[in-house]
């Protein structure tokens, strides 16, 4: 208990509205940077929840466009997206492990952020406003869309994981093959193995050319997977892109649900819709910044890989395996914990 300061009021029973004595923070302890950052984001978020509630409450009793609400919602969107979360985890992992243009990352981030706002609007306005649900039932509905998003999160994780494991084992095989090439005696053995493998896909290969083509052959088999695999890759990648956007977008933002439910009950539907739109724009800005960073990091890393350093190739695969596994685990964890969620009453 630090310093105790007494109120300046001359009479005991006279306490000024909001009278609070703020004592100076005397013992500023050292904390982990992470804790500091998390605490800051969380504290801000909590303040935003209160501010948004207050702005809506004030709009209820007085006419106005509510620019303050829109501005606060926008800032909330920017900040909210800056916190740690599954949305950013999945987008970052995807962009780090997939060669893609800057535009694609930006488009994905924008689509996901806007979809999130739309999900909230459809859930709250659609269910309460049109289908006559009770506000608390909307929470149940948003829980269900969240579950779908968790499943998608796990699936995208699985896809990235499988893909990275495939690429890694291919790389390992190629590396082994290369080192085998140095020792001429083991070469034949390796080649036979690869040859069998490739035979299914590629009938053009001549059996006569064994020795001269040996190296290229192995390389194509282990690393590039041939044109058929590339086609599969594109389709899988397209699905994964949609998966990423949906995994993020189907999870309505709690701030958006809060604002919309309050707005419904308070008869401020338009204000609520604009606020959520502003929130989505704010979220999009942060997510786009993240997508740009991830794409740049990926480009930088693939420039390193271009030097064919085995370490970088393996490290790249490692990121995919680790990130994919993490997303898979994250998705399953969130899914299982979502089944124990309920509404609590005081005490």
């Amino acid at each position, binding site marked *: *208990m*630090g310093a*105790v300061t*007494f*109120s300046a*009021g001359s009479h*005991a*029973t006279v*306490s000024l*509205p*909001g009278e*609070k*004595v*703020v*004592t100076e*923070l005397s013992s500023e302890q050292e*904390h*982990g940077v992470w*804790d*500091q950052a*998390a*605490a800051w*984001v*969380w*504290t801000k*978020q*909590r303040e935003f929840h*209160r501010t948004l*509630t207050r702005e*809506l*409450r004030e709009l209820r009793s007085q006419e106005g466009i509510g620019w303050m609400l829109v501005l606060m919602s926008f800032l909330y*969107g920017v900040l*909210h*997206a800056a916190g*740690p*979360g599954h*949305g*950013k985890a999945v987008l970052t992992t995807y962009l780090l492990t997939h060669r893609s243009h800057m535009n694609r990352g930006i488009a994905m981030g924008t689509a996901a952020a806007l979809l999130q706002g739309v999900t909230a609007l459809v859930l709250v306005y659609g269910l309460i406003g049109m289908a006559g649900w*009770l*506000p*608390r039932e909307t929470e149940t509905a948003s829980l269900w*869309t*969240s579950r779908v998003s968790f499943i998608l999160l796990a699936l995208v994780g699985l896809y990235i994981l499988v893909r990275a494991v495939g690429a890694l084992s291919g790389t390992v095989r190629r590396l082994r093959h290369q080192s085998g090439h140095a020792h001429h005696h083991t070469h034949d053995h390796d080649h036979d193995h690869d040859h069998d493998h490739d035979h299914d896909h590629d009938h053009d290969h001549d059996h006569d050319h064994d020795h001269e083509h040996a190296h290229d052959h192995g390389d194509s088999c282990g690393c590039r997977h041939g044109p058929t695999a590339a086609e599969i890759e594109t389709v899988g990648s397209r699905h994964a892109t949609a998966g990423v956007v949906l995994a*993020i977008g189907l*999870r*309505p*933002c*709690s701030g*958006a*649900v809060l604002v919309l*439910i309050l707005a419904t*009950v308070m008869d401020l539907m338009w204000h609520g819709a604009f606020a959520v739109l502003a929130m989505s724009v704010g*979220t999009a800005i942060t997510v786009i910044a993240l997508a740009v960073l991830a794409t740049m990091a990926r480009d930088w890393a693939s420039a390193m890989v271009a030097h064919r350093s085995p370490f970088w190739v393996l490290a790249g695969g490692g990121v995919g395996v680790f990130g994919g596994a993490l997303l898979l685990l994250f998705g399953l964890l969130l899914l299982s914990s979502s089944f*124990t*969620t*309920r509404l*609590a*009453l*005081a*005490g």
Partner: protein
Amino acid sequence: MAMCFAPGVQSHPHHWIDVFAEWQFDTKGLIDGVKLRWLFDDYYSILLVDDTAATEEKLQAILKRVMSNTAKHHYFLRIENEGGEARFGNPEQAKIGMRDHRVEIQFRLPIKTRLDPGQGDIVYRVAEPTYYFEMLHAEEGAAIVLKDAPNGCRYSLEPPQPDAALVAYAASLGVNESGGDELGIQFAETVTIRCE
């Protein structure tokens, strides 16, 4: 409840209660009871009673539940007096109602052994133990009133100062997780009442 990109929102606290406390002094200048008023946040209120659908019957059922639940947690109030903790009698005049579309619960807690703020500081904290709810004295209106107090009685309020690690920990707790019954108190304001 769901969130944007951060699991942070699922974290504690989920809701908040604005607290009003009226400390009642007897003719000898001793505190013999406190009238507490809890004003729940708009969102929680809507979730709890579906606003317009709030019937008297429904509200009374909620009141009954809340009172019996909170009885196990000394009504979210802890008073320190000369090293000991003050004990309460059964709550009186418990009421529930809607104020500006928010659920409001109020009741008076009689204090068994009267407190003498002239003899030593009376220090109290209000907290919901698990920090599912954040309980702070209201910023609007007279949140703390020293009713019929003798001249020279003052109070002071010290804001909570949880360290970052604790805040981060609370933020990491999901809706259904609990950080134990000692979490809330660490996020509580400390109010001191003293008479000179």
